[in-house]
Protein backbone atom coordinates (compact mmCIF):
# COMPACT_ATOMS: atom_id res chain seq x y z
CA UNK A 1 0.00 0.00 0.00
CA UNK A 2 1.31 3.44 -0.94
CA UNK A 3 -0.23 6.75 0.05
CA UNK A 4 -0.09 9.90 -2.02
CA UNK A 5 -1.44 13.27 -1.07
CA UNK A 6 -2.93 16.00 -3.16
CA UNK A 7 -5.63 18.55 -2.62
CA UNK A 8 -9.16 17.21 -2.23
CA UNK A 9 -11.59 19.34 -4.16
CA UNK A 10 -14.82 17.50 -3.59
CA UNK A 11 -15.39 15.85 -0.25
CA UNK A 12 -16.42 12.31 -0.94
CA UNK A 13 -14.78 8.93 -1.04
CA UNK A 14 -14.32 6.62 -3.98
CA UNK A 15 -13.03 3.07 -3.91
CA UNK A 16 -12.29 1.43 -7.23
CA UNK A 17 -9.94 0.67 -10.05
CA UNK A 18 -7.70 3.17 -11.77
CA UNK A 19 -7.87 3.90 -15.45
CA UNK A 20 -5.21 6.11 -16.87
CA UNK A 21 -6.43 8.92 -19.05
CA UNK A 22 -4.57 8.95 -22.31
CA UNK A 23 -5.03 11.43 -25.01
CA UNK A 24 -5.66 9.17 -27.94
CA UNK A 25 -3.61 9.88 -31.01
CA UNK A 26 -6.33 9.84 -33.63
CA UNK A 27 -4.06 9.27 -36.60
CA UNK A 28 -2.54 5.83 -37.09
CA UNK A 29 0.91 5.97 -38.59
CA UNK A 30 2.29 3.45 -41.01
CA UNK A 31 5.55 2.06 -39.70
CA UNK A 32 7.79 -0.56 -41.24
CA UNK A 33 8.55 -3.48 -38.97
CA UNK A 34 11.08 -6.26 -38.92
CA UNK A 35 9.24 -8.93 -37.07
CA UNK A 36 5.73 -9.73 -38.35
CA UNK A 37 5.31 -12.47 -35.74
CA UNK A 38 5.66 -9.88 -33.00
CA UNK A 39 3.00 -7.67 -34.61
CA UNK A 40 0.66 -10.65 -34.88
CA UNK A 41 1.17 -11.30 -31.19
CA UNK A 42 0.30 -7.70 -30.47
CA UNK A 43 -2.92 -8.10 -32.44
CA UNK A 44 -3.81 -11.20 -30.45
CA UNK A 45 -3.05 -9.53 -27.13
CA UNK A 46 -5.09 -6.47 -28.09
CA UNK A 47 -7.93 -8.68 -29.21
CA UNK A 48 -8.00 -10.46 -25.86
CA UNK A 49 -8.08 -7.12 -24.11
CA UNK A 50 -10.77 -5.75 -26.39
CA UNK A 51 -12.91 -8.83 -25.88
CA UNK A 52 -12.54 -8.49 -22.15
CA UNK A 53 -13.68 -4.85 -22.35
CA UNK A 54 -16.59 -5.74 -24.55
CA UNK A 55 -17.67 -8.50 -22.22
CA UNK A 56 -17.77 -6.01 -19.39
CA UNK A 57 -19.72 -3.54 -21.49
CA UNK A 58 -22.04 -6.32 -22.52
CA UNK A 59 -22.69 -7.30 -18.92
CA UNK A 60 -23.35 -3.72 -17.94
CA UNK A 61 -25.66 -3.21 -20.90
CA UNK A 62 -27.46 -6.42 -20.05
CA UNK A 63 -28.31 -5.02 -16.64
CA UNK A 64 -29.10 -1.51 -17.77
CA UNK A 65 -30.64 -1.71 -21.21
CA UNK A 66 -31.81 -5.31 -21.55
CA UNK A 67 -30.81 -8.31 -23.58
CA UNK A 68 -31.93 -7.08 -26.99
CA UNK A 69 -29.83 -3.93 -26.78
CA UNK A 70 -26.88 -5.64 -25.18
CA UNK A 71 -26.54 -8.17 -27.99
CA UNK A 72 -24.71 -5.74 -30.23
CA UNK A 73 -21.68 -6.03 -27.96
CA UNK A 74 -21.74 -9.76 -28.29
CA UNK A 75 -21.76 -9.22 -32.04
CA UNK A 76 -18.82 -6.87 -31.69
CA UNK A 77 -16.95 -9.67 -29.97
CA UNK A 78 -17.83 -12.04 -32.79
CA UNK A 79 -16.79 -9.49 -35.38
CA UNK A 80 -13.41 -9.23 -33.69
CA UNK A 81 -13.11 -12.96 -34.12
CA UNK A 82 -14.20 -12.92 -37.73
CA UNK A 83 -11.95 -15.00 -39.95
CA UNK A 84 -11.88 -12.65 -42.92
CA UNK A 85 -11.24 -9.65 -40.75
CA UNK A 86 -8.36 -11.37 -39.01
CA UNK A 87 -6.96 -12.82 -42.24
CA UNK A 88 -6.90 -9.37 -43.74
CA UNK A 89 -4.97 -7.92 -40.77
CA UNK A 90 -2.57 -10.84 -40.85
CA UNK A 91 -1.90 -10.64 -44.54
CA UNK A 92 -1.30 -6.89 -44.45
CA UNK A 93 1.22 -7.31 -41.64
CA UNK A 94 2.99 -10.18 -43.35
CA UNK A 95 3.06 -8.95 -46.93
CA UNK A 96 3.64 -5.27 -46.30
CA UNK A 97 5.77 -5.63 -43.15
CA UNK A 98 3.87 -2.90 -41.35
CA UNK A 99 2.79 -2.27 -37.79
CA UNK A 100 -0.33 -3.88 -36.39
CA UNK A 101 -2.15 -0.57 -35.88
CA UNK A 102 -1.81 0.27 -39.53
CA UNK A 103 -2.96 -3.17 -40.63
CA UNK A 104 -6.06 -2.88 -38.47
CA UNK A 105 -6.80 0.62 -39.72
CA UNK A 106 -6.57 -0.46 -43.38
CA UNK A 107 -8.67 -3.56 -42.76
CA UNK A 108 -11.20 -1.43 -40.94
CA UNK A 109 -11.46 0.95 -43.88
CA UNK A 110 -11.90 -1.89 -46.37
CA UNK A 111 -14.60 -3.67 -44.44
CA UNK A 112 -16.34 -0.47 -43.49
CA UNK A 113 -16.38 0.51 -47.13
CA UNK A 114 -17.87 -2.83 -48.10
CA UNK A 115 -20.79 -2.21 -45.77
CA UNK A 116 -21.08 1.43 -46.66
CA UNK A 117 -21.46 0.54 -50.33
CA UNK A 118 -24.34 -1.86 -49.75
CA UNK A 119 -27.73 -0.67 -50.97
CA UNK A 120 -29.33 -1.30 -47.60
CA UNK A 121 -29.39 1.52 -45.08
CA UNK A 122 -29.25 -0.90 -42.19
CA UNK A 123 -26.15 -2.61 -43.50
CA UNK A 124 -24.55 0.73 -44.36
CA UNK A 125 -24.82 1.59 -40.71
CA UNK A 126 -22.78 -1.51 -39.85
CA UNK A 127 -19.67 0.20 -41.14
CA UNK A 128 -19.83 2.14 -37.88
CA UNK A 129 -19.57 -1.13 -35.97
CA UNK A 130 -16.49 -2.11 -37.93
CA UNK A 131 -14.89 1.21 -37.16
CA UNK A 132 -15.88 0.92 -33.53
CA UNK A 133 -14.28 -2.48 -32.99
CA UNK A 134 -11.22 -1.50 -35.00
CA UNK A 135 -10.69 1.66 -32.98
CA UNK A 136 -11.04 -0.34 -29.83
CA UNK A 137 -8.50 -2.82 -31.10
CA UNK A 138 -6.04 -0.09 -32.00
CA UNK A 139 -6.55 1.58 -28.63
CA UNK A 140 -5.83 -1.72 -26.92
CA UNK A 141 -2.48 -1.92 -28.68
CA UNK A 142 -0.90 1.09 -27.07
CA UNK A 143 1.58 -0.32 -24.61
CA UNK A 144 0.69 1.93 -21.78
CA UNK A 145 -2.96 1.21 -21.72
CA UNK A 146 -6.19 2.33 -23.14
CA UNK A 147 -8.18 5.48 -22.66
CA UNK A 148 -10.49 4.98 -19.75
CA UNK A 149 -13.53 5.55 -21.91
CA UNK A 150 -13.11 2.18 -23.58
CA UNK A 151 -14.18 0.48 -20.42
CA UNK A 152 -17.79 0.17 -19.40
CA UNK A 153 -17.04 -0.20 -15.71
CA UNK A 154 -16.82 2.78 -13.38
CA UNK A 155 -13.25 3.72 -12.76
CA UNK A 156 -11.10 6.30 -11.08
CA UNK A 157 -9.73 8.42 -13.90
CA UNK A 158 -6.07 9.28 -13.37
CA UNK A 159 -4.40 11.91 -15.51
CA UNK A 160 -1.38 14.18 -15.52
CA UNK A 161 -3.82 17.03 -15.80
CA UNK A 162 -7.26 17.48 -17.27
CA UNK A 163 -8.25 20.44 -19.38
CA UNK A 164 -11.66 21.84 -18.53
CA UNK A 165 -12.99 20.58 -21.86
CA UNK A 166 -11.69 17.10 -21.09
CA UNK A 167 -13.28 17.15 -17.67
CA UNK A 168 -16.59 18.19 -19.13
CA UNK A 169 -16.50 15.46 -21.74
CA UNK A 170 -16.00 12.75 -19.14
CA UNK A 171 -19.00 10.51 -18.95
CA UNK A 172 -20.13 10.99 -15.38
CA UNK A 173 -21.63 7.54 -15.32
CA UNK A 174 -18.24 5.99 -15.89
CA UNK A 175 -16.23 8.04 -13.47
CA UNK A 176 -15.98 7.16 -9.80
CA UNK A 177 -13.47 9.86 -9.07
CA UNK A 178 -10.59 11.60 -10.67
CA UNK A 179 -7.06 12.26 -9.65
CA UNK A 180 -4.61 14.51 -11.44
CA UNK A 181 -0.87 14.67 -10.91
CA UNK A 182 -0.74 18.42 -11.47
CA UNK A 183 -3.15 21.30 -11.27
CA UNK A 184 -4.36 23.60 -8.56
CA UNK A 185 -7.48 23.29 -6.50
CA UNK A 186 -8.75 26.59 -7.82
CA UNK A 187 -8.44 25.59 -11.45
CA UNK A 188 -11.54 25.32 -13.55
CA UNK A 189 -11.10 21.58 -13.58
CA UNK A 190 -11.43 21.44 -9.83
CA UNK A 191 -14.48 23.64 -9.97
CA UNK A 192 -16.04 21.36 -12.53
CA UNK A 193 -15.33 18.32 -10.36
CA UNK A 194 -17.22 19.97 -7.57
CA UNK A 195 -20.14 20.59 -9.87
CA UNK A 196 -20.22 17.05 -11.06
CA UNK A 197 -20.42 15.68 -7.49
CA UNK A 198 -17.39 13.57 -8.21
CA UNK A 199 -14.68 12.96 -5.60
CA UNK A 200 -11.53 14.48 -6.93
CA UNK A 201 -7.97 15.01 -5.85
CA UNK A 202 -5.78 17.49 -7.68
CA UNK A 203 -2.00 17.72 -7.60
CA UNK A 204 -1.18 14.21 -6.40
CA UNK A 205 2.30 14.55 -7.90
CA UNK A 206 3.93 12.79 -10.80
CA UNK A 207 5.16 9.93 -8.62
CA UNK A 208 1.52 8.96 -8.24
CA UNK A 209 1.12 8.36 -11.97
CA UNK A 210 4.30 6.30 -12.03
CA UNK A 211 2.99 4.22 -9.18
CA UNK A 212 -0.15 2.98 -10.87
CA UNK A 213 -1.31 1.06 -13.89
CA UNK A 214 -4.71 0.50 -15.40
CA UNK A 215 -6.70 -1.55 -12.95
CA UNK A 216 -4.69 -0.57 -9.85
CA UNK A 217 -6.93 -0.60 -6.81
CA UNK A 218 -7.33 2.89 -5.38
CA UNK A 219 -9.05 4.70 -2.59
CA UNK A 220 -9.58 8.41 -3.19
CA UNK A 221 -10.44 10.52 -0.20
CA UNK A 222 -11.72 13.83 -1.48
CA UNK A 223 -11.96 15.15 2.09
CA UNK A 224 -8.27 14.90 2.89
CA UNK A 225 -6.76 14.62 -0.57
CA UNK A 226 -5.26 11.23 0.22
CA UNK A 227 -4.99 8.48 -2.34
CA UNK A 228 -4.21 4.91 -1.36
CA UNK A 229 -2.73 2.70 -4.04
CA UNK A 230 -3.31 -1.03 -3.56
CA UNK A 231 -4.82 -0.50 -0.10
CA UNK A 232 -4.80 -3.34 2.41
CA UNK A 233 -8.02 -4.89 3.57
CA UNK A 234 -8.18 -2.96 6.78
CA UNK A 235 -7.93 0.36 4.95
CA UNK A 236 -10.60 -0.69 2.50
CA UNK A 237 -12.84 -1.60 5.43
CA UNK A 238 -12.19 1.70 7.15
CA UNK A 239 -12.98 3.65 4.01
CA UNK A 240 -16.06 1.64 3.18
CA UNK A 241 -17.36 2.66 6.62
CA UNK A 242 -16.47 6.29 5.93
CA UNK A 243 -18.28 6.09 2.63
CA UNK A 244 -21.35 4.82 4.41
CA UNK A 245 -21.10 7.63 6.95
CA UNK A 246 -20.99 10.10 4.07
CA UNK A 247 -24.10 8.53 2.61
CA UNK A 248 -25.89 8.87 5.96
CA UNK A 249 -24.91 12.51 6.12
CA UNK A 250 -26.24 13.04 2.65
CA UNK A 251 -29.47 11.43 3.72
CA UNK A 252 -29.69 13.80 6.65
CA UNK A 253 -29.17 16.73 4.38
CA UNK A 254 -31.99 15.56 2.18
CA UNK A 255 -34.18 16.12 5.18
CA UNK A 256 -33.25 19.80 5.07
CA UNK A 257 -34.89 20.16 1.71
CA UNK A 258 -37.69 22.67 1.68
CA UNK A 259 -36.48 24.26 4.91
CA UNK A 260 -35.68 27.97 5.09
CA UNK A 261 -32.17 29.39 5.11
CA UNK A 262 -32.61 31.12 8.42
CA UNK A 263 -30.34 31.51 11.42
CA UNK A 264 -31.45 30.73 14.97
CA UNK A 265 -32.06 34.44 15.55
CA UNK A 266 -34.17 34.78 12.42
CA UNK A 267 -31.71 36.25 9.89
CA UNK A 268 -32.45 35.00 6.40
CA UNK A 269 -30.16 34.57 3.44
CA UNK A 270 -30.67 33.27 -0.09
CA UNK A 271 -28.73 30.21 -1.09
CA UNK A 272 -28.45 29.88 -4.85
CA UNK A 273 -26.47 27.56 -7.10
CA UNK A 274 -23.66 28.08 -9.62
CA UNK A 275 -23.87 26.12 -12.82
CA UNK A 276 -22.09 25.99 -16.14
CA UNK A 277 -24.62 24.43 -18.45
CA UNK A 278 -28.22 23.53 -19.05
CA UNK A 279 -27.42 19.94 -18.02
CA UNK A 280 -26.88 20.96 -14.39
CA UNK A 281 -30.37 22.35 -13.86
CA UNK A 282 -31.40 18.96 -12.48
CA UNK A 283 -28.72 19.25 -9.78
CA UNK A 284 -29.92 22.75 -8.90
CA UNK A 285 -33.44 21.53 -8.35
CA UNK A 286 -32.41 18.29 -6.62
CA UNK A 287 -30.40 20.28 -4.09
CA UNK A 288 -33.23 22.70 -3.50
CA UNK A 289 -31.36 25.87 -4.43
CA UNK A 290 -33.43 29.04 -4.26
CA UNK A 291 -32.24 30.16 -7.65
CA UNK A 292 -29.21 30.28 -9.89
CA UNK A 293 -26.73 32.87 -8.66
CA UNK A 294 -24.23 32.28 -11.43
CA UNK A 295 -24.98 30.72 -14.76
CA UNK A 296 -21.76 30.65 -16.74
CA UNK A 297 -22.65 31.28 -20.36
CA UNK A 298 -19.26 30.14 -21.68
CA UNK A 299 -20.43 26.60 -22.39
CA UNK A 300 -22.46 27.90 -25.34
CA UNK A 301 -19.27 29.21 -26.86
CA UNK A 302 -17.06 26.28 -25.85
CA UNK A 303 -19.42 23.67 -27.27
CA UNK A 304 -19.76 25.48 -30.55
CA UNK A 305 -17.51 25.47 -33.61
CA UNK A 306 -18.36 29.05 -34.38
CA UNK A 307 -20.01 31.96 -32.61
CA UNK A 308 -23.32 30.68 -31.24
CA UNK A 309 -26.23 32.41 -32.91
CA UNK A 310 -28.77 34.55 -31.13
CA UNK A 311 -31.31 31.78 -31.63
CA UNK A 312 -29.06 29.08 -30.11
CA UNK A 313 -28.37 31.26 -27.11
CA UNK A 314 -31.98 32.30 -26.73
CA UNK A 315 -33.09 28.65 -26.71
CA UNK A 316 -30.60 27.75 -23.96
CA UNK A 317 -31.37 30.77 -21.77
CA UNK A 318 -35.09 30.31 -22.19
CA UNK A 319 -34.77 26.68 -21.15
CA UNK A 320 -32.96 27.60 -17.94
CA UNK A 321 -35.42 30.34 -17.11
CA UNK A 322 -38.42 28.15 -17.76
CA UNK A 323 -36.95 25.24 -15.80
CA UNK A 324 -36.42 27.50 -12.81
CA UNK A 325 -40.05 28.56 -12.97
CA UNK A 326 -39.84 32.12 -11.74
CA UNK A 327 -36.87 31.64 -9.43
CA UNK A 328 -34.01 34.06 -9.95
CA UNK A 329 -31.54 33.12 -12.68
CA UNK A 330 -28.43 35.25 -12.98
CA UNK A 331 -26.67 34.73 -16.26
CA UNK A 332 -23.15 36.03 -16.55
CA UNK A 333 -22.16 37.30 -19.95
CA UNK A 334 -19.25 35.77 -21.80
CA UNK A 335 -16.23 35.28 -19.54
CA UNK A 336 -13.37 33.90 -21.56
CA UNK A 337 -9.77 34.86 -21.92
CA UNK A 338 -6.47 33.38 -22.93
CA UNK A 339 -6.77 30.69 -20.22
CA UNK A 340 -10.17 29.57 -21.50
CA UNK A 341 -9.40 29.58 -25.20
CA UNK A 342 -11.95 29.27 -27.94
CA UNK A 343 -10.38 28.82 -31.38
CA UNK A 344 -12.76 30.90 -33.42
CA UNK A 345 -12.28 33.92 -31.18
CA UNK A 346 -8.71 33.97 -32.49
CA UNK A 347 -7.38 35.49 -29.28
CA UNK A 348 -3.68 36.12 -29.18
CA UNK A 349 -1.58 34.09 -26.83
CA UNK A 350 -0.81 36.14 -23.77
CA UNK A 351 1.93 35.91 -21.20
CA UNK A 352 -0.44 36.86 -18.46
CA UNK A 353 -3.98 35.96 -19.42
CA UNK A 354 -5.40 36.65 -15.97
CA UNK A 355 -4.54 40.29 -16.52
CA UNK A 356 -5.30 40.18 -20.19
CA UNK A 357 -7.88 40.62 -22.89
CA UNK A 358 -10.79 38.79 -21.36
CA UNK A 359 -14.45 38.80 -20.35
CA UNK A 360 -16.11 42.21 -20.56
CA UNK A 361 -13.00 43.61 -22.25
CA UNK A 362 -13.67 41.34 -25.22
CA UNK A 363 -17.36 42.23 -25.22
CA UNK A 364 -16.76 45.97 -25.17
CA UNK A 365 -14.13 45.68 -27.91
CA UNK A 366 -16.19 43.41 -30.12
CA UNK A 367 -19.72 44.79 -29.75
CA UNK A 368 -21.24 42.40 -32.30
CA UNK A 369 -20.54 39.45 -29.99
CA UNK A 370 -21.89 41.33 -27.01
CA UNK A 371 -25.01 42.50 -28.85
CA UNK A 372 -25.92 38.95 -29.95
CA UNK A 373 -25.68 37.70 -26.39
CA UNK A 374 -27.63 40.63 -24.93
CA UNK A 375 -30.38 40.23 -27.52
CA UNK A 376 -30.68 36.54 -26.67
CA UNK A 377 -30.73 37.35 -22.96
CA UNK A 378 -33.39 40.03 -23.20
CA UNK A 379 -35.56 37.90 -25.47
CA UNK A 380 -35.30 35.10 -22.89
CA UNK A 381 -36.11 37.54 -20.06
CA UNK A 382 -39.79 37.28 -20.98
CA UNK A 383 -39.77 33.64 -19.84
CA UNK A 384 -38.66 33.91 -16.23
CA UNK A 385 -36.84 35.94 -13.60
CA UNK A 386 -33.57 36.93 -15.25
CA UNK A 387 -30.63 38.89 -13.95
CA UNK A 388 -27.78 39.83 -16.26
CA UNK A 389 -24.30 40.04 -14.80
CA UNK A 390 -21.12 41.49 -16.27
CA UNK A 391 -17.71 40.04 -15.36
CA UNK A 392 -14.29 41.65 -14.82
CA UNK A 393 -15.56 45.15 -14.15
CA UNK A 394 -12.93 47.67 -13.04
CA UNK A 395 -14.47 51.06 -13.76
CA UNK A 396 -17.60 53.20 -13.83
CA UNK A 397 -17.30 53.77 -17.56
CA UNK A 398 -17.31 50.04 -18.26
CA UNK A 399 -20.56 49.66 -16.37
CA UNK A 400 -22.03 52.65 -18.18
CA UNK A 401 -21.07 51.11 -21.52
CA UNK A 402 -22.67 47.80 -20.54
CA UNK A 403 -25.87 49.54 -19.54
CA UNK A 404 -25.87 51.56 -22.76
CA UNK A 405 -25.51 48.31 -24.72
CA UNK A 406 -28.48 46.87 -22.81
CA UNK A 407 -30.57 49.97 -23.50
CA UNK A 408 -29.69 49.78 -27.17
CA UNK A 409 -30.79 46.15 -27.37
CA UNK A 410 -34.02 46.85 -25.48
CA UNK A 411 -34.81 49.67 -27.91
CA UNK A 412 -34.21 47.36 -30.87
CA UNK A 413 -36.44 44.65 -29.44
CA UNK A 414 -39.16 47.15 -28.71
CA UNK A 415 -39.10 48.48 -32.26
CA UNK A 416 -39.25 44.90 -33.57
CA UNK A 417 -42.21 44.18 -31.31
CA UNK A 418 -40.36 41.44 -29.42
CA UNK A 419 -41.30 40.85 -25.79
CA UNK A 420 -38.78 41.27 -22.99
CA UNK A 421 -38.90 41.96 -19.26
CA UNK A 422 -38.30 45.65 -18.55
CA UNK A 423 -37.42 44.83 -14.91
CA UNK A 424 -34.55 42.51 -15.76
CA UNK A 425 -31.95 43.16 -13.07
CA UNK A 426 -28.47 44.22 -14.07
CA UNK A 427 -25.51 43.42 -11.88
CA UNK A 428 -21.76 43.23 -11.93
CA UNK A 429 -19.14 40.89 -10.62
CA UNK A 430 -16.94 42.27 -7.89
CA UNK A 431 -13.82 40.33 -8.71
CA UNK A 432 -11.17 42.99 -9.07
CA UNK A 433 -9.87 44.99 -6.15
CA UNK A 434 -10.64 48.10 -8.24
CA UNK A 435 -14.35 47.30 -8.36
CA UNK A 436 -14.48 46.66 -4.61
CA UNK A 437 -12.64 49.88 -3.81
CA UNK A 438 -14.95 52.03 -5.97
CA UNK A 439 -18.05 50.01 -5.11
CA UNK A 440 -19.65 53.22 -3.79
CA UNK A 441 -19.49 54.61 -7.33
CA UNK A 442 -20.64 51.39 -8.99
CA UNK A 443 -23.54 50.50 -6.72
CA UNK A 444 -25.85 53.35 -7.81
CA UNK A 445 -25.62 52.11 -11.41
CA UNK A 446 -26.72 48.53 -10.81
CA UNK A 447 -29.26 46.32 -9.06
CA UNK A 448 -26.79 43.89 -7.55
CA UNK A 449 -23.18 42.91 -6.93
CA UNK A 450 -21.87 39.41 -6.96
CA UNK A 451 -18.46 38.80 -5.47
CA UNK A 452 -16.28 36.44 -7.48
CA UNK A 453 -13.95 35.44 -4.70
CA UNK A 454 -11.66 33.27 -6.82
CA UNK A 455 -10.53 36.10 -9.05
CA UNK A 456 -10.77 38.64 -6.27
CA UNK A 457 -8.34 36.47 -4.31
CA UNK A 458 -5.92 36.04 -7.18
CA UNK A 459 -5.90 39.74 -7.98
CA UNK A 460 -5.76 40.94 -4.39
CA UNK A 461 -3.05 38.53 -3.29
CA UNK A 462 -1.24 38.62 -6.67
CA UNK A 463 -1.38 34.83 -6.84
CA UNK A 464 -2.10 33.15 -10.18
CA UNK A 465 -4.86 30.67 -9.46
CA UNK A 466 -3.60 28.27 -12.11
CA UNK A 467 -0.18 28.10 -10.52
CA UNK A 468 -0.07 25.08 -8.23
CA UNK A 469 3.20 26.25 -6.66
CA UNK A 470 1.47 29.21 -5.09
CA UNK A 471 -1.04 27.13 -3.18
CA UNK A 472 0.70 27.73 0.13
CA UNK A 473 0.67 31.49 -0.43
CA UNK A 474 -3.03 31.68 -1.09
CA UNK A 475 -4.78 32.49 2.15
CA UNK A 476 -8.40 32.59 1.08
CA UNK A 477 -9.38 34.05 4.45
CA UNK A 478 -6.92 36.91 4.05
CA UNK A 479 -8.14 40.00 5.80
CA UNK A 480 -7.67 42.10 2.66
CA UNK A 481 -10.21 40.00 0.81
CA UNK A 482 -12.71 40.03 3.63
CA UNK A 483 -12.38 43.79 3.98
CA UNK A 484 -13.01 44.28 0.27
CA UNK A 485 -16.14 42.15 0.50
CA UNK A 486 -17.35 44.01 3.55
CA UNK A 487 -16.75 47.36 1.85
CA UNK A 488 -18.68 46.24 -1.21
CA UNK A 489 -21.57 45.01 0.94
CA UNK A 490 -21.76 48.31 2.79
CA UNK A 491 -21.75 50.31 -0.44
CA UNK A 492 -24.28 48.06 -2.11
CA UNK A 493 -26.75 48.40 0.74
CA UNK A 494 -26.19 52.16 1.04
CA UNK A 495 -27.31 52.44 -2.59
CA UNK A 496 -30.25 50.08 -2.55
CA UNK A 497 -28.45 47.22 -4.29
CA UNK A 498 -28.15 43.69 -3.00
CA UNK A 499 -24.95 41.66 -2.80
CA UNK A 500 -24.16 38.01 -3.24
CA UNK A 501 -21.06 35.86 -3.27
CA UNK A 502 -20.66 33.43 -6.11
CA UNK A 503 -17.05 32.37 -5.65
CA UNK A 504 -15.75 29.31 -3.87
CA UNK A 505 -15.56 31.22 -0.61
CA UNK A 506 -19.33 31.36 -0.48
CA UNK A 507 -19.39 27.65 0.27
CA UNK A 508 -16.77 27.85 3.01
CA UNK A 509 -18.60 27.06 6.27
CA UNK A 510 -15.91 28.78 8.30
CA UNK A 511 -16.95 32.10 6.77
CA UNK A 512 -20.72 31.70 6.70
CA UNK A 513 -21.14 33.56 9.97
CA UNK A 514 -18.78 36.34 8.85
CA UNK A 515 -20.78 36.81 5.66
CA UNK A 516 -24.07 36.83 7.51
CA UNK A 517 -22.73 39.52 9.82
CA UNK A 518 -21.65 41.59 6.80
CA UNK A 519 -25.24 41.44 5.62
CA UNK A 520 -24.52 39.42 2.48
CA UNK A 521 -27.92 38.77 0.87
CA UNK A 522 -27.11 35.70 -1.15
CA UNK A 523 -24.57 32.91 -1.35
CA UNK A 524 -24.29 31.05 -4.62
CA UNK A 525 -22.46 27.74 -4.48
CA UNK A 526 -22.05 24.51 -6.42
CA UNK A 527 -25.30 22.54 -6.19
CA UNK A 528 -23.95 19.87 -3.78
CA UNK A 529 -23.05 22.60 -1.27
CA UNK A 530 -26.50 24.13 -1.08
CA UNK A 531 -27.86 21.84 1.63
CA UNK A 532 -24.69 21.65 3.78
CA UNK A 533 -24.68 25.43 3.71
CA UNK A 534 -28.33 25.53 4.74
CA UNK A 535 -27.49 23.25 7.65
CA UNK A 536 -24.68 25.62 8.62
CA UNK A 537 -26.87 28.74 8.39
CA UNK A 538 -29.54 27.11 10.55
CA UNK A 539 -26.97 26.41 13.27
CA UNK A 540 -25.72 30.00 13.55
CA UNK A 541 -26.91 32.51 16.12
CA UNK A 542 -25.91 36.09 15.37
CA UNK A 543 -27.27 37.51 18.61
Amino acid at each position, binding site marked *: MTVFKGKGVYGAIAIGKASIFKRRDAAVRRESIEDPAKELERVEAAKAKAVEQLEKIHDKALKEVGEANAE*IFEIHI*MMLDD*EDYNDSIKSIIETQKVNAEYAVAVTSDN*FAEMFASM*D*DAYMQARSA*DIKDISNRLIACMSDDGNTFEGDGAKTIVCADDLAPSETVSLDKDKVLAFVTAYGSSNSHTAILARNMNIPAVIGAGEEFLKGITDGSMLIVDGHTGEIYVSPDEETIKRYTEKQEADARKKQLLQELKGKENVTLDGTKINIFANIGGVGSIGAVLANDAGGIGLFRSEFLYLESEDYPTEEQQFTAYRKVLESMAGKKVIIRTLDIGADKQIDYFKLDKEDNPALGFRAIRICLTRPEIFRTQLRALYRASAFGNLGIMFPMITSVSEVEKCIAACDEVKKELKSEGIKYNEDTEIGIMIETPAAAVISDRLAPLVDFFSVGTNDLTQYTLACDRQNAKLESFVDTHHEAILRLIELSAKNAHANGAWIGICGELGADPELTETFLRMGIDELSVSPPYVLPLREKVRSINLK
Partner: protein
Amino acid sequence: MKQFTYTIKDEVGIHARPAGNLVKLIKGYSSTVTIEKEGKPAINATALMKLMGLGVKCGDTVKFSIEGDDEEASAKAIEEFMTANL
Protein backbone atom coordinates in the same frame (compact mmCIF):
# COMPACT_ATOMS: atom_id res chain seq x y z
CA MET B 1 -24.25 -33.57 -47.13
CA LYS B 2 -27.57 -31.98 -46.26
CA GLN B 3 -29.02 -29.10 -48.24
CA PHE B 4 -32.11 -26.97 -47.94
CA THR B 5 -33.36 -23.61 -49.06
CA TYR B 6 -35.13 -20.96 -47.06
CA THR B 7 -36.94 -17.79 -48.09
CA ILE B 8 -36.52 -14.88 -45.68
CA LYS B 9 -39.73 -13.55 -44.18
CA ASP B 10 -38.22 -11.13 -41.67
CA GLU B 11 -38.58 -7.52 -42.76
CA VAL B 12 -34.99 -6.50 -42.17
CA GLY B 13 -33.37 -9.69 -43.43
CA ILE B 14 -30.26 -11.34 -42.01
CA HIS B 15 -29.04 -8.33 -40.09
CA ALA B 16 -26.34 -8.16 -37.48
CA ARG B 17 -28.12 -9.73 -34.56
CA PRO B 18 -29.60 -12.81 -36.31
CA ALA B 19 -26.38 -13.20 -38.28
CA GLY B 20 -24.45 -13.26 -35.05
CA ASN B 21 -26.82 -15.73 -33.49
CA LEU B 22 -26.75 -17.93 -36.56
CA VAL B 23 -22.96 -18.01 -36.53
CA LYS B 24 -23.01 -18.87 -32.86
CA LEU B 25 -25.45 -21.70 -33.49
CA ILE B 26 -23.47 -23.13 -36.40
CA LYS B 27 -20.25 -23.00 -34.42
CA GLY B 28 -21.93 -25.21 -31.84
CA TYR B 29 -21.72 -28.09 -34.33
CA SER B 30 -18.72 -29.61 -36.00
CA SER B 31 -20.21 -29.64 -39.50
CA THR B 32 -19.12 -27.14 -42.12
CA VAL B 33 -21.93 -24.94 -43.34
CA THR B 34 -22.04 -22.79 -46.45
CA ILE B 35 -24.72 -20.35 -47.38
CA GLU B 36 -25.49 -19.20 -50.87
CA LYS B 37 -27.61 -16.34 -52.07
CA GLU B 38 -28.91 -16.56 -55.61
CA GLY B 39 -26.41 -15.25 -58.08
CA LYS B 40 -23.55 -15.07 -55.60
CA PRO B 41 -20.85 -17.56 -54.68
CA ALA B 42 -21.39 -19.63 -51.55
CA ILE B 43 -19.71 -18.42 -48.40
CA ASN B 44 -18.71 -20.07 -45.19
CA ALA B 45 -21.69 -19.42 -42.94
CA THR B 46 -19.51 -18.75 -39.90
CA ALA B 47 -17.84 -15.78 -41.60
CA LEU B 48 -19.94 -13.19 -39.82
CA MET B 49 -18.90 -10.17 -41.80
CA LYS B 50 -19.29 -11.94 -45.14
CA LEU B 51 -22.67 -13.20 -44.03
CA MET B 52 -23.74 -9.69 -43.15
CA GLY B 53 -22.13 -8.51 -46.36
CA LEU B 54 -24.37 -10.81 -48.42
CA GLY B 55 -27.16 -8.40 -47.69
CA VAL B 56 -29.86 -11.05 -47.45
CA LYS B 57 -33.19 -9.26 -47.41
CA CYS B 58 -36.82 -10.12 -47.01
CA GLY B 59 -37.98 -12.28 -49.91
CA ASP B 60 -34.46 -13.53 -50.77
CA THR B 61 -33.94 -17.26 -50.94
CA VAL B 62 -30.77 -18.73 -49.50
CA LYS B 63 -29.40 -22.23 -49.83
CA PHE B 64 -27.66 -23.97 -46.92
CA SER B 65 -25.24 -26.85 -47.44
CA ILE B 66 -24.18 -28.73 -44.34
CA GLU B 67 -21.49 -31.34 -44.28
CA GLY B 68 -19.92 -33.22 -41.37
CA ASP B 69 -20.42 -35.75 -38.64
CA ASP B 70 -23.37 -34.00 -37.06
CA GLU B 71 -24.90 -32.66 -40.27
CA GLU B 72 -28.35 -34.07 -39.44
CA ALA B 73 -28.56 -32.27 -36.11
CA SER B 74 -26.89 -29.13 -37.44
CA ALA B 75 -29.25 -28.85 -40.41
CA LYS B 76 -32.25 -29.37 -38.18
CA ALA B 77 -31.09 -26.68 -35.74
CA ILE B 78 -30.39 -24.19 -38.53
CA GLU B 79 -33.75 -24.79 -40.11
CA GLU B 80 -35.50 -24.29 -36.79
CA PHE B 81 -33.53 -21.14 -36.16
CA MET B 82 -34.38 -19.71 -39.56
CA THR B 83 -38.08 -20.46 -39.18
CA ALA B 84 -38.22 -18.98 -35.71
CA ASN B 85 -36.17 -15.85 -36.40
CA LEU B 86 -36.14 -15.04 -40.06
